[in-house]
């Protein structure tokens, strides 16, 4: 019982070999998964209601909220530093009905006379602003909402409403510290097959205007297929 391998005691050598083998297997598996979903510099992501492509070095997270009323599918694609990203939210028929009822009530209380998707966009924009306002208030800060533009846009062959907003004075956590900056969001919404769909593009600070980011946004939006 004195066998040695590569100058190491046999059990130690076995441990190192298992470790190396498992790391090797992990690399091979990652490569295999990468090949399976790769499409050039993008990965394909398939969900129940939406298929899309996103950059290899971005992070995509899917979510599913399901209850007796229906299903909401969400996909978040964000850059590795979370400075820019795209969110997709799709409500199924029943959830769309419930959500729109809530939005209509909210809009009528404020006296907005807009269509369902525009009301939904305003509703979500206000919700986002309130979230940042409360978050910043805790830190004795102030945030300001700017409505930049709105109108119609074509996304994946659907005519959609959009609204671009900027929230100024955001407190962002970066590299262990926090800094104040501006964030820009574009809410896009439309209804297809009685399902409400949201796309939210965002960029923090200067990222919103970077051509590379817009190239990625356009690729994601153009590659998205709704089911």
């Amino acid at each position, binding site marked *: *019982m004195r066998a040695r391998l590569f100058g190491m005691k046999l059990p130690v050598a076995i441990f190192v070999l298992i470790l190396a083998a498992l790391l090797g297997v992990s*690399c091979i598996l*990652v490569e295999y*998964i990468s090949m399976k979903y790769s499409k050039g510099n993008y990965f394909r992501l398939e969900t129940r209601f939406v298929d899309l492509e996103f950059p290899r070095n971005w992070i995509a*997270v899917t979510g599913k909220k399901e209850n007796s009323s229906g299903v909401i599918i969400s996909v978040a694609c964000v850059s590795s530093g979370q400075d820019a990203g795209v969110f997709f939210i799709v409500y199924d028929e029943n959830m769309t009905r419930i959500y729109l009822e809530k939005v209509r009530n909210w809009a009528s209380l404020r006296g907005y006379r807009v269509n369902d998707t525009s009301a939904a966009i305003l509703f979500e924009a206000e919700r986002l602003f309130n979230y940042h306002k409360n978050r910043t208030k805790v830190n004795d800060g102030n945030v300001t909402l700017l409505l930049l533009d709105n109108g119609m846009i074509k996304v994946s062959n659907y005519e959609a409403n959009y609204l671009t907003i900027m929230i100024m004075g955001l407190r962002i956590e970066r590299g262990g510290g926090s800094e104040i900056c501006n964030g820009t969001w574009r809410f896009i919404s439309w209804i297809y097959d009685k399902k409400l769909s949201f796309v939210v593009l965002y960029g923090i600070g200067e990222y919103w205007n970077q051509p590379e980011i817009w190239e990625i946004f356009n690729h994601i939006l153009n590659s998205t297929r709704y089911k």
Partner: protein
Amino acid sequence: MNVDEEEEALERGGYSRIYQIMHMLIGGGIIAGVFLTVIYLLDFPWVILLVLLKGLNCLGLIFYPEVAAVSVILTFAIAYMPSGLCGGLYTGYRIKENLRIILLIPALLGFLFAILILSWFFPRYRLLINLNPTTDVLIPLVGIIIGSYLGGYSMNWGVEAEEAEEVEGETTIRMLGFEEAEAEIEEAERLERLRGIGPARAERLRDAGVKTISDLAEAEVEDLYEKTGIPRAVLLRAIEEAKELKGLKGEGQPTEGD
């Protein structure tokens, strides 16, 4: 065995058992400590997975369900096995006997300690039924056990062979001593040592069946003279000298005083 010896043996046995249990508990503690530190404090498998995905330019895959399998493999390699190895190294260092059974105990204890500590901090672990039997129980346990055995055996690997080598070495030394003694005896029995017996006469004596000084001490002068042709005076003096060397002079023969 008398009463005192029995008591002593009992005492020794008791101490040994307590000693073993104590070190198995410490081994289990080490496993649980390393396990929790690597997974929950340092989040090491997750960090390695991120590094791996970034290195392969595949960060986007991180939340793909298939990558969960890679995460499990990495956790097995980076957390479960090394934590078992650390506990096994300690246990193997402290306890040298019955490793086949002994090393299993700290592995099981370590896993149990880890679950108990986790149940304190994470509600998911409070009811063991909420755990995934494969990824939360079976795989960690297998990893820890493998690590524990590899660690424990590596501490004692080659010790038996070294001891055997030492024993073999001693035997060889003893064998060498015997040969030396034999050579000394041979030297002491060489006929050429006697006065008047050179190599040629010694050869003639050996041909006559007298191979050693002892043989010569018991031989007869006349008989040898007839067989070898060596002068009687030479033979007589050589036989007398042989008897002196062997201490036979005077035994069974009349001495001058008689």
